[in-house]
């Protein structure tokens, strides 16, 4: 088995999205998720001498992030009573807003769906990790961020026909990878 090594300079490009997606479903707040991701990278950097090379870089970073998420929940719940959910609708300031808060979730969305979606999300990101990094970056910008063709072309300095060839290759590779991992 090849020994894995760490390369902190490439961490952000390679794993930021993956870790961010992992964090955001757990803390449900963009800013906090971002903080957790950057804290994870810093912690990883500080303890990179402890990395044995048995697991892949990503697995190692995820395990750090897991601890960070737990720490985060400990921190916000450390003051006594904060963990309790308080329901209090007698507040004058929020008069009338309680109705909106009570709206039911979509009927077709269940916990299993959410879990499946998370797995799917991570599977897609894992697959994107495996294809050509430049193709993956372009594909992400076009498909996930929904950028215009023109904007992507300007960013990467390529022609539109070039872009479509890259998108085609990325899609084919991604489909093949997902077929293995997901279907």
């Amino acid at each position: 088995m090849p020994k894995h090594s760490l390369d902190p300079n490439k961490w952000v490009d390679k794993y930021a999205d993956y870790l961010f997606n992992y964090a955001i479903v757990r803390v449900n707040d963009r800013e906090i998720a971002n903080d957790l991701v950057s804290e994870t990278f810093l912690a990883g950097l500080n303890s990179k001498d402890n990395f044995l090379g048995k697991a892949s870089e990503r697995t190692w970073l995820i395990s750090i992030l897991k601890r960070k998420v737990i720490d985060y929940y400990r921190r916000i719940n450390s003051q006594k009573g904060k963990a309790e959910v308080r329901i209090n609708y007698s507040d004058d300031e929020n008069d009338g807003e309680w109705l909106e808060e009570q709206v039911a979730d979509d009927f077709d969305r269940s916990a299993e769906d959410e879990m499946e979606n998370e797995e799917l999300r991570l599977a897609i990101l894992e697959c994107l990790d495996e294809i050509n990094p430049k193709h993956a970056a372009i594909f992400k910008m076009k498909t996930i961020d929904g950028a215009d063709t023109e904007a992507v072309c300007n960013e990467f300095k390529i022609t539109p026909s070039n872009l479509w060839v890259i998108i085609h290759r990325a899609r084919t590779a991604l489909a093949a990878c997902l077929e293995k991992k997901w279907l």
Partner: protein
Amino acid sequence: MQKPKFFILNCSDAANCCDKKEYNEASVREKTSIIIHNLFCKKCRDYSAKNSKLTQLIKKARIKGCTSEEKKNIKERLKQEISKQESSSS
């Protein structure tokens, strides 16, 4: 890509149009050409089906990426830390 003559495409152009269609960027002419091409070409028919399935899966996963600005911030923090470590070790 050349404009298709009489809605006839070769397979690589059909694949190209099919990709465009997934991003809603195909013209009516291109869409019609794909339909006609797919009538005769099983390979491209399969590709079209696979392609739209991939789009569906990506939509379903609702991936939220970090914005490039957020990434830049993280990168800078990490870079500072790396240079700090390097200077302290040397």
